[in-house]
């Protein structure tokens, strides 16, 4: 019980600290930070429930007004902005990543964690992020206006996907390292 709490707490801290690692800037000024790698790892290492709770704790810190997101961002504003779906989507993203590692035991850890990160950290996350943005964009438009299509919303978010694919591969490699040197630490499969 106590160990569950401390694991959740420490992975929350890891997610926050990874947001402070200097970001790589893509050509057009889109920042890529390692914070979402932390979300993928929380799911892959801690498993679905604990991973999701670690993310929930980070989200709680954001709501409390602490600058724990990459670039020192935080506060309630993020939850009501056009990119709120991505922040909220971290929760199911970590959950699904963990679920894949827990359930598909036939796959080696690296493949399962990488696959989980692609399904959760990209598939689920972008679905929520894009739908959230699309709803925000189309809320309250008049009858004479043309609503934005889901496809256009997807195109706007698409530039971020290659970076997240790299992070999914990294999550798989790091999960494999953890499982190899300390098998008991990979709680998702313990």
């Amino acid at each position, binding site marked *: 019980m106590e160990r569950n709490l401390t694991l959740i707490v*420490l992975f929350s801290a890891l997610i926050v*600290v990874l947001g402070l690692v200097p970001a790589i800037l893509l050509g057009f000024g889109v920042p890529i930070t390692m914070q979402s790698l932390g979300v993928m790892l929380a799911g892959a290492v801690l498993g679905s429930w604990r991973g999701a709770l670690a993310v929930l704790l980070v989200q709680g810190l954001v709501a409390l007004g602490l600058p724990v997101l990459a670039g020192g961002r935080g506060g309630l504003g993020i939850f009501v902005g*056009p990119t709120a779906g991505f922040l909220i989507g971290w929760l199911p993203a970590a959950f699904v990543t963990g679920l894949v590692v827990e359930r598909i035991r036939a796959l080696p850890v690296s493949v399962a964690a990488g696959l989980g990160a692609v399904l959760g950290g990209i598939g689920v996350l972008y679905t929520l992020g894009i739908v959230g943005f699309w709803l925000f964009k189309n809320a*309250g*438009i008049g009858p004479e206006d043309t609503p934005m299509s889901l496809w256009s919303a997807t195109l706007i978010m698409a530039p971020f996907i290659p970076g997240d694919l790299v992070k999914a591969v990294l999550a798989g490699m*790091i999960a494999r390292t953890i499982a190899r040197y300390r098998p008991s630490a990979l709680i998702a499969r313990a």
Partner: protein
Amino acid sequence: MLSLALPQRSWAHRLPASLKFAVLAILMLGLMPLGTVTGQGAGVALAAGLVASLGWQASVIALRALRPVMWIVAVIVAWHLWQGELRQGAVFGLRVVAMMGLANFVTLTTPLPEIIALVERMAQPLARLGLSPRLPALAVGLVLRFIPELRARHAEMTDAWRARSPRRARTKIIAPLAFSLLDDADRLAEALRARGGIAPVPTAPLAEERHPYGT
């Protein structure tokens, strides 16, 4: 770790946190379906007026907080300009500024201890699940204690790497960082157990002392 709340006291700091959160929720629900420039413009004016009442420094912080979403506003406004629908682009941009500005106003004017007290009050139903209602506050306290710790360790490992390799450490030190963190989790769990654990102790008179909160 510093909260984004402003250190000085303002008129808005004196309002109860629960009231500010409730009014914010109502304003969000009201602004979301508004599709007119005047409606969203009124929202922006309200947010700007509230933030301006806190002073110059607060206004700069509030404006800086909008920066991370400005790229998406720029993309959308440019797209609408190209489509010849200026009004829709304007409504979107104003809504982003209004909603985020109002929410950030609450963040700027509500000190962390007040929000944690609010969380503790809202966590009371946890007791029915056999969990301590102080668990969320404990978790927040612990994570705030460990962020600087983990950050220092990350910097230390980066230095150690740099002393031995001409290449950048980048993601190579995440696994060793995770190992040290898993050790911490074991030791911290032991320390919590040694102080009575985290299960609620409703009848024991020493309940307060048995809970290792805040240290």
